[in-house]
């Protein structure tokens, strides 16, 4: 367990040394989101209708954008070998990497999204719901994206390939994340949606660390 904490702490410290990398991802999220009103038109009811879907899709893209380097940096400077050689389960290391990624991407996105939601004319209660769905849903994105990042480690054209692998697997999270916000706005069952979102996160938690560890071992061969 101490290794897990140490790895999260190391990754957070590395991000702290280069805050620009995270800032770029968040800026992308903001800019991508604001393009939609410009493309679709400023009608308030249309924007409020599409807000949840737009913000969720933009959050998904932003999360994927930052995943490219998740394992690649460790792979290139040799620290991945040290993780592979650490005398504790590699599955925990995989989880720690995804955990650190979530702290610096998922968490800020969940905080930022309601601010952008205001620009789409969402009600305060819906803004809160949006933030809640992102909090519950983005860990799944970090885990699935982490798997895609591990699978494409050392591949040609890894960035685009990563998105191609991760996006179909992220569809359930997208559906229930955006669906939950919409359910709240239209009087549907918000709690059921959140429950499914949490269940998806648990499934990802139970499966992806093993797959990531297997992919990392292959990258080490």
């Amino acid at each position: 367990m101490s290794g897990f904490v140490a790895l999260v702490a190391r990754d957070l410290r590395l991000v702290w040394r280069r805050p620009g990398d995270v800032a770029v991802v968040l800026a992308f999220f903001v800019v991508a989101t604001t393009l939609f009103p410009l493309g679709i038109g400023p009608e308030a009811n249309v924007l409020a209708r599409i807000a949840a879907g737009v913000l969720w899709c933009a959050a998904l893209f932003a999360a994927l954008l930052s995943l490219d380097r998740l394992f690649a940096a460790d792979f290139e400077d040799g620290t991945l070998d040290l993780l592979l050689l650490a005398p504790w389960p590699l599955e925990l290391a995989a989880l720690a990497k995804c955990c650190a990624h979530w702290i610096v991407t998922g968490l800020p996105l969940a905080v930022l999204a309601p601010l952008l939601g205001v620009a789409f004319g969402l009600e305060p209660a819906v803004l809160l719901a949006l933030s809640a769905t992102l909090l519950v849903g983005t860990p799944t994105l970090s885990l699935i994206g982490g798997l895609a990042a591990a699978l494409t480690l050392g591949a040609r054209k890894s960035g685009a390939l990563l998105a191609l692998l991760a996006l179909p697997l992220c569809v359930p999270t997208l559906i229930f994340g955006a669906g939950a916000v919409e359910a709240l706005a239209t009087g549907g069952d918000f709690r059921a949606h959140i429950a499914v979102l949490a269940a998806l996160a648990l499934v990802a938690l139970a499966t992806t660390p093993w797959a990531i560890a297997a992919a990392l071992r292959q990258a080490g061969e």
Partner: protein
Amino acid sequence: MATPLLEVADLACRRGGRRVFERLSFSLGPGELLALTGRNGSGKTTLLRALALLIRPDTGSIHWQGTDVAAEPDAWRGRLAWLGHLEGLKADLSVAENLLAAERLRGAPPAGDRLDSALVAFDLSVLARRAMRTLSAGQRRRTALARVVLTQAPLWLLDEPLNALDAPAQAAFRGALASHLASGGLAIAATHADLGVAGARTLELGEPQKASA
């Protein structure tokens, strides 16, 4: 010869359908150094990676004190100190931070007190707070060697440890290696140069063999 701690029997590795080496057997006792020699591509790195269980060998076994290391891989990894082609150091962390982080990633207790002696051994004390990014290749290599010393692991696996080192640094490494061996440690090093250890054993890896597809 002392009773062997490490016994490798009939090891064979294949990369991309090509057999790198086969029927490789050796054993190593406390205080012994095995120098791996051979031309580029003869499989020195592959052998080191196979010993560290980073590569699954096709056949063969590795035993430590009579137990198959594949049965308890985490215990085996805990006995290893690794130095690869890549240093395994983060460019954005300082020398000291890198060393401490590497120790913590091994799940070891805080290494603050041991850190100073490792830094002194490789003349890194002045550089301790410098970011890795600002150091030269030789200084980075010295940091990586300090990381190896810091692990206090019984078996060192070293890939070209003398790379990029100047004469004083080479002497420092030889000293560290000698005291590691003197305290009963083992080391396997792929190297072209003499490591200055009396009675070191050598394993020459041959030409890459043709595979029978």
